[in-house]
């Protein structure tokens, strides 16, 4: 009691010195609060960001691995990759055929879906090309569209099955956007479609409503009619885009006739049961060169997988025009996704395949600036706390030396040294607690704007880094297709030299190339604001930090107090 009262009196008495300490502690505490709350926000974002949202996952072939393996097998390959991409082309065909064998069938996908309990649901789409007939023409806004689609056709038909395999895989990698926000990534697969889907229309078969709502061309709304059913009774029911309907002057109930992309003699009759309008337009179709009108979202004809099956165009069909399968697993959280990835490995998925999730990858790349900020916050914390500790220790040291006489008098009148030390500790504790409280308040008030400001600069830095990467890669907006080609062949442009030499490098350069076109269509949706509010956990951490610093500082005081002998102090004085 005596100690408390004396400490309090002493705090009141030495206002000037204590205000100085309070100011210093406030600054330290405010900086620490900001640092802690940033780290807290980053940790929360990391763990809870995908907690309650569904995560979609795909199984895809690890092509870079297979390609590099087959590369090592061919001795002539090293020569060709050194000279030029064109010389290496025959090898790519060989590689593609190697990849073709690895393509998973619908049954395989379903087997893996059953192997894990973490899968909430699954859906898939099958995409194939259809050609125009005289009374049903694709929407096209350029004069030479027939020309370009012609070249594409010839190119596609030269090795249809190979390119289909390769791009079907590609589809699997970047398809199935989880929601409207991500729809642009779906657009990327659409661009892939430019290289693969021959014909004038793309016929997309959906397995369920869930698949429809995750359509690769983005979400849509029905203008007229309604969406087809999935049973065999709804076979040949299709919905077409409003632009396509207007272009051909069609309405619900009309029948359209289209021909097989690879065999114009085979025609299919389809009934229009609905007309839809894309609510999110893929932005990149404006800039990207359309290899095929089929890749134009306006020329997408949606139907059920059952229809495709009845037409003999489904993925398991033997036909050249067999659809490419895009199978999507839906998990209810990120941790479920991770469980799923483990389970399929257990179920016998070979290491040639990888389980990936566009959602998780997107989310993780969106966290890059936040993670950088978190690292920065840690550095800030360490610097602030170590400087703070030193300053506090020095102040305490001076304080104790200055009050040597007081210590002498107190011990001389019979106050125990331990009590004196406790009083000094308590005094510092009172002062630092006031500083901590004020600092936490200031920190709480400024942490949101400050951390968002810091985050904005991180995002900016990240974006400028990417744009400089794009410059380095020498690819501009006009030729996003080139970067996709480099993905297929993994040997074109400047990336090839490093890609050929190093597998790891290959992976990163691929990802960058992928990120490149993504950036053109839309900026990666970086987490650009954090909810860096100061909650109880942060306050608790701050208190711990404050107590820790005070203890360090008072330890010095205690050592000094215990060292002093009252007789010596008083003798020195007189």
């Amino acid at each position, binding site marked *: 009691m*005596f100690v408390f009262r*004396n400490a309090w009196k002493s705090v009141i008495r030495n206002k000037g010195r204590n205000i100085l300490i309070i100011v210093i502690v406030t600054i330290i505490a405010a900086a620490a609060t900001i640092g802690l709350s940033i780290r807290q926000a980053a940790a929360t974002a990391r763990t809870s960001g995908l907690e309650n949202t569904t995560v979609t996952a795909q199984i895809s072939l690890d092509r870079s691995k297979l390609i590099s393996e087959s590369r090592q097998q061919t001795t002539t390959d090293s020569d060709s990759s050194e000279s030029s991409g064109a010389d290496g082309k025959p090898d790519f065909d060989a590689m593609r055929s190697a990849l073709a064998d690895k393509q998973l069938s619908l049954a395989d996908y379903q087997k893996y879906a059953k192997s894990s309990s973490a899968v909430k649901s699954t859906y898939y789409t099958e995409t194939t090309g259809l050609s125009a007939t005289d009374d049903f023409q694709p929407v096209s806004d350029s004069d030479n569209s027939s020309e370009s689609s012609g070249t594409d056709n010839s190119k596609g038909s030269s090795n249809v099955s190979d390119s289909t395999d390769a791009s079907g895989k590609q589809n699997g990698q970047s398809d199935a956007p989880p929601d409207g926000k991500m729809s642009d990534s779906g657009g990327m697969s659409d661009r892939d479609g430019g290289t693969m889907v021959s014909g004038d229309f793309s016929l997309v078969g959906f397995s369920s409503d869930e698949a429809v709502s995750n359509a690769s061309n983005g979400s849509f709304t029905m203008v007229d009619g309604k969406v087809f059913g999935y049973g065999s009774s709804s076979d040949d029911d299709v919905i077409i885009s409003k632009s396509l309907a207007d272009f051909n002057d069609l309405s619900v109930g009309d029948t359209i006739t289209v021909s097989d992309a690879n065999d114009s003699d085979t025609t299919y009759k389809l009934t229009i049961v609905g007309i839809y309008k894309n609510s999110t337009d893929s932005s990149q179709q404006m800039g990207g060169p359309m290899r095929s009108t089929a890749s134009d979202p306006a020329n997408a004809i949606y139907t059920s997988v059952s229809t495709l099956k009845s037409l003999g165009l489904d993925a398991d069909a033997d036909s050249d025009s067999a659809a490419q399968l895009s199978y999507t697993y839906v998990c209810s959280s990120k941790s479920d996704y991770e469980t799923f990835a483990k389970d399929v490995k257990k179920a016998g998925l070979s290491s040639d395949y990888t389980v990936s999730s566009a959602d998780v990858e997107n989310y993780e790349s969106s966290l890059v600036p936040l993670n950088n900020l978190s690292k920065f916050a840690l550095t800030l914390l360490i610097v602030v706390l170590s400087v703070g500790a030193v300053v506090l220790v020095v102040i305490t040291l001076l304080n104790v030396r200055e009050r040597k006489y007081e210590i002498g*008098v*107190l011990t001389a*009148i*019979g*106050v125990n040294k331990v009590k004196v030390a406790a009083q000094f500790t308590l005094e510092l504790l009172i002062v630092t607690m006031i500083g901590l409280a004020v600092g936490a308040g200031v920190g709480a008030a400024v942490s949101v704007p400050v951390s968002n400001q810091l985050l904005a600069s991180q995002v900016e830095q990240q974006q400028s880094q990417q744009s400089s990467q794009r410059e380095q890669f020498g690819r501009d907006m006009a030729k996003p297709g080139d970067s996709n080609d480099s993905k297929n062949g993994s040997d074109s442009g400047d990336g090839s030299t490093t890609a050929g030499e190093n597998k790891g490098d290959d992976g990163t350069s691929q990802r960058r190339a992928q990120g490149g076109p993504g950036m053109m269509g839309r900026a990666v949706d970086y987490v650009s604001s954090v909810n860096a509010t100061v909650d109880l956990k942060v306050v608790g951490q701050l208190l711990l930090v404050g107590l820790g610093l005070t203890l360090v500082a008072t330890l010095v005081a205690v050592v000094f107090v215990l060292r002093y002998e009252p007789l010596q102090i*008083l003798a020195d004085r007189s």
Partner: protein
Amino acid sequence: MITKNTNVVIDGGTEKDSERQSRQADAPTLRLDDVSYAYTKGGKRVLRNMSHDFHAGKVHAITGPSGAGKTTLLSLISGLAVPTEGKVLIDGEDLAKRDRYRFRSHDIGVIFQSFNLLPNLTVAENIILSMEASGKSFDRPKKDIVDGLLGQVHLPKEYANERILHLSGGEQQRVAIARALSYDPAIIVADEPTGNLDLATQDDIMGIFRKLAHDGNRCVIIVTHSPEVAKASDEVFELAPIRRRGKRNN
């Protein structure tokens, strides 16, 4: 009664018996038992084999020339230092074995030569600090006791809220006495209490000490080199300078 012989050696066995007997009749409040003191271990001894009894109800004066070890003796009595050899006995109990902090805050009031008041505290705060440090409980509010003490040392009540810095040497001396009295100790020790005071003040302060001893039945020990103070005391304990004593012994 004047005791000039400082080197009284008492036989250990008989001393204990006589001590027990004398405590019943006229037990010394404080007894120095063959005390020696050196500031450094094995160094020069400032005090050598000193024995003396201090009784309650009397004013004792410790005199001697500079360097005789007066202040050192005071440090030993007040428990600020522990004798290198021998014992300081308080009511027959070895001070070295007691909690000396408690002894200082509880049983002895020390008036230091340089007063050792806290300059940035007021008079009342200084006195109350000692009262609180003693851990004793008081039947009256501490402010009232302070007023009473100020009257006892002949200071006006208005001084209670005055800072020590604003007081003269004599006034500080009185505050120091008031502080030493505040928790009602059995022993009061003063180091040169009249050192830099004028004669009238000196007499006044000696009067206070005599009153404390005779009326309050306290054991008052005053270290001084002033003959007037020694004369006004009931008993004088004269220390000889240690160097000269050493020479004489040789």
